[in-house]
């Protein structure tokens, strides 16, 4: 089966600019996650969607970050305006949501550099 797709793979912007990332999960996967991974740290969950509804966005900096999954399939994550500390890899993952298989499958990530 095709994996989780993300684009772009790399992005360099200046602080205060805006940026958007796109994710297409594995076909049929109901749950979609966005993570921020700063160098040397484990992934930090930003937002979790179940179909097109938000399940958990407690760690999403809502003053600058937003995410949507309008049709319950692909999703976009936006940062506006970006800060230097937003430099990280942004990972998208999906899971089927079936109780016996909570495994998350990750996309290749988008490496963001904020100058």
């Amino acid at each position, binding site marked *: 089966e095709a994996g989780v797709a993300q684009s772009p793979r790399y992005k360099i912007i200046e602080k205060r600019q805006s940026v958007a990332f796109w994710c297409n999960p594995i076909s049929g996967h109901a749950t979609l996650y966005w993570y921020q991974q700063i160098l040397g740290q*484990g*992934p*930090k969950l930003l937002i979790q969607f179940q179909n097109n509804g938000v399940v958990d966005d407690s760690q999403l900096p809502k003053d600058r970050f937003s995410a949507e999954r309008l049709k319950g399939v692909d999703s976009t994550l936006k940062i506006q305006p970006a800060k230097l500390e937003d430099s990280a890899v942004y990972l998208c993952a999906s899971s089927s949501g079936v109780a016996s298989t*909570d495994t*998350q499958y990750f996309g290749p990530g988008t490496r963001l550099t904020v100058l």
Partner: protein
Amino acid sequence: EDKVVQSPLSLVVHEGDTVTLNCSYEVTNFRSLLWYKQEKKAPTFLFMLTSSGIEKKSGRLSSILDKKELFSILNITATQTGDSAIYLCALLSNAGNNRKLIWGLGTSLAVNP
């Protein structure tokens, strides 16, 4: 507060060595523990452990969970340079009606030829 602690933070070994990576945790409403391997890209899934004492194996990798002492180990035998990566442990917990994944910081493994 739920937490996952991995040790060591980093490890350097020679090819052929055996390594043991540790993951200890504190969590309410444990559901499962997952191990991932992360090279210069996104994490790839290795194992999911739900029951104590049942070893999971995949080639030279194996893992086991101890729900009484609240830890898991990941063993890699006859290490190869291709095993060099960050190994991440994550805990899946039920938080009310939600499932939450809590990540450790990872163990960085370097296998030298």
